[in-house]
C-alpha cells in the first residue's frame, strides 16, 4: 500500500510540471508587459527596461520557464503586480478560507447525498424517491452563484437571519456552504441512487439475505460498501468543483478567499497572482484525487491486492493458527 502511494506521488510530478507549463503559457499569451505593469504607469522607459533586466524578462521563454519551476519548487511564485508582495504569502493567507468552504460543502454533499441516494434506491418509486429525484434535478440545474443569490434574497434580505457576506463566523458559513453543497449533493444523490440500485440487484445481496441477515446490515454493510466505491470518486471531483467554484461563490458572498483573490487579480491584470492561484488549486485538487484513489484501493480489495495489501490476512492468520492448535489438543 505504501508502495502504491509512493508510486502515485512520483507520478504526480510530471502532471504538476505540465500544469505549471499550462499556467506559464497562459501568461505568455496574455498581452501586456509585466515590467510595465510592475513599474507602474508613471515609470520612465529606462526604469522599465532596467526592471525587465532584473526580472530576467529578456531571457528566452525556456529559461524563464525553468526559472519559474525552480522558484516554484522553493515556494516563490513571483511578486504581485499591485502590492509587490510575494504571491505565495497572499495565497496562503487566503487559502484556508477557500479550503474550509470546499470541505464544508463536500461534507454537506456527502452526508445528504449519500443518505438521500440510499433512501431513494431502497424505496424505489416511493414518495421519498420522487422527492430525492426532484431534489437532485433542481440541484444539478441551478447555477451555484444564482442559488447563492437566491439564498441571500431569502435569508438575508427577506428574513434577515443570515449574514449575506463575509466568512468570519460559522453563521457566515451556512449559505456559501449550502449553495456549493447543494449542487454537489444533487450529483452525489444521483450517483449513489444509481450505484445502489445496481448493487442491490447483485447475487451477493441475495446471499446475505439468505443467511438471515437483517435488512439494515444487508443495506449498510453489504450493499453500501460496494455502492460507495464509485461515489467516492464523484465526491473527490465535487471537492475539486467546490475548490474551483470558489471563484464564483466567493464573489457572490464577498468572501475574501482564494477565489475572490483570483477574480480581483484577473480584473486588475495581476497575472502572477492568477497564475499562482491556479497552480495552488491544481496541486490541492490533484492531492485530493490521489487521496480518493487511495481510499478507493482501500475499499476495493480487487484493486488493493494489485498492490500487495494483505494487512487483514495477516491479522486473521492468528485465528487459523488457533484452529490448528485447537484441533491438535482435542
Amino acid at each position: 500500500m505504501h508502495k502504491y502511494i509512493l508510486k502515485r506521488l512520483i507520478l504526480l510530478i510530471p502532471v504538476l510540471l505540465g500544469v505549471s507549463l499550462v499556467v506559464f503559457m497562459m501568461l505568455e499569451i496574455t498581452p501586456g508587459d509585466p515590467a510595465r505593469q510592475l513599474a507602474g504607469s508613471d515609470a520612465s522607459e529606462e526604469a522599465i527596461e532596467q526592471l525587465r533586466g532584473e526580472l530576467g524578462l529578456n531571457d528566452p521563454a525556456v529559461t524563464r520557464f525553468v526559472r519559474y519551476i525552480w522558484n516554484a519548487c522553493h515556494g516563490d511564485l513571483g511578486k504581485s503586480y499591485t502590492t509587490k508582495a510575494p504571491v505565495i504569502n497572499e495565497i496562503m493567507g487566503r487559502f484556508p478560507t477557500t479550503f474550509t468552504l470546499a470541505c464544508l460543502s463536500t461534507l454537506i454533499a456527502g452526508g445528504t447525498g449519500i443518505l438521500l441516494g440510499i433512501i431513494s434506491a431502497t424505496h424505489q418509486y416511493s414518495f421519498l424517491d420522487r422527492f430525492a429525484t426532484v431534489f437532485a434535478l433542481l440541484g444539478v440545474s441551478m447555477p451555484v452563484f444564482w442559488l447563492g443569490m437566491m439564498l441571500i434574497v431569502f435569508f438575508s434580505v427577506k428574513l434577515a437571519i443570515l449574514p449575506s457576506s463575509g466568512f468570519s463566523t460559522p453563521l457566515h458559513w451556512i449559505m456559501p456552504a449550502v449553495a456549493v453543497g447543494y449542487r454537489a449533493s444533487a450529483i452525489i444523490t444521483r450517483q449513489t441512487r444509481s450505484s445502489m440500485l445496481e448493487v442491490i440487484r447483485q447475487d451477493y445481496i441475495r446471499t446475505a439475505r439468505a443467511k438471515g441477515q437483517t435488512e439494515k446490515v444487508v443495506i449498510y454493510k453489504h450493499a453500501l460498501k460496494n455502492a460507495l466505491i464509485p461515489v467516492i470518486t464523484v465526491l473527490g471531483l465535487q471537492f475539486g468543483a467546490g475548490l474551483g467554484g470558489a471563484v464564483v461563490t466567493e464573489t457572490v458572498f464577498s468572501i475574501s478567499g482564494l477565489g475572490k483573490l483570483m477574480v480581483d487579480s484577473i480584473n486588475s491584470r495581476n497575472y502572477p497572482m492568477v497564475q499562482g492561484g491556479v497552480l495552488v488549486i491544481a496541486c490541492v485538487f490533484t492531492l485530493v484525487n490521489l487521496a480518493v484513489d487511495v481510499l478507493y484501493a482501500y475499499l476495493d480489495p480487487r484493486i488493493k491486492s494489485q498492490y500487495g495489501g494483505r494487512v487483514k490476512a495477516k491479522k486473521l492468520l492468528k485465528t487459523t493458527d488457533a484452529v490448528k492448535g485447537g484441533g491438535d489438543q482435542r
Partner: protein
Amino acid sequence: MSEQALSSKKKSMGAEKFHAFMKNKLAVAGAMLLIAMILLVALSPVLAPYGYDEQNYEVARQTPSFHHLAGTDELGRDIFSRILYGGRVSLTIGIISVGIGLLCGGSLGILAAYYGGITETVLMRIIDILMAIPSIILAISICAALGSGIVNTMIAVGISSIPTYARVFRSAVISEKSKEYIEASRAVGAGNMRIILRHILPNSLAPVIVQASLGVAQAITTAASLSFIGLGIQPPNPEWGALLSGGRQYIRDYPHMVVYPGIAIMLTVLALNLIGDGLRDALDPRLKR
C-alpha cells in the same frame, strides 16, 4: 444491396431507441421544454416586446408588471426581452463550445484509443494535466489570457471540456475496437481511417451523445459563471450570466433583476439534463431499470 439492408436495420434500431426515449415521460417533458426555449429564443426579434438595449429611464428598476413581464433594470431596459435575446447568446455558446470540445476531445480520444501504445500514453498524459485543473478554473485561465468576448468565451469553455470528451470517446472506442467486426473489416483490407470513420465512430456514439447533451447544459452554466465574475460576455450584451452579474448590485432592493435570468438558466439546464438522462436510458439498456 447489403448497404441497403444495413441502413434499414440501422433505421429500425434508431426507431426502437426513439420509442424508448418517447416512453420516458420526464425526458419528453425535457425535450418539449427545450424546444419551447429554442423557439422563444430564436424568435426573440419578433416576440420580445422591446429591444435588448432599449433604455427608458422613466421605467427604471420596475418590478414585474403586464408591460414588463420580468421587470426592468437600472437603465429601464425590459428584462424579459433581454432574457430572450440573451438566450441566443447563451445557447449559441453552449452548442458551439460543446462542438469545440467534441471535435478536439473527440479526435484526441479516438486517436489515443485506436492507435494505443506511445500515442495513447502521450495524449492521455496531456489530458491528465488538463484534468488536474478544475474545469471552471481552466476556463477562467484561458478566458483571462485570451480576453473576454463571445468567441473567446466559446473557446475557453470548449477547451475546458476537452478532457471529458477525450475520455468518453476513448473508452467508447476502446470497447468498440475489441469487437470482432473491426477485426473482420481489417481482414478485408480496410484502412485505419476508414475503420475509424465508418465503423468505430458510428458505433461508439451512444455515450458521446449523452455526454454532449449534458455538456451543453454544463457549457451554458460555465459561460454564465465566467460572465458573472466579469470575464466572458461583457455588458451591454445580454448573456444570461452577464444579466445576473449586472443585477447583483441591486439584489437587496430589486431582486427581480436576478431572479428571472437565473430561472431561464435553470429551465434550460433542467431540460437538457432530462434529455440527457432520457437518452442514456434509451441508448444504454444496461443502465435501464
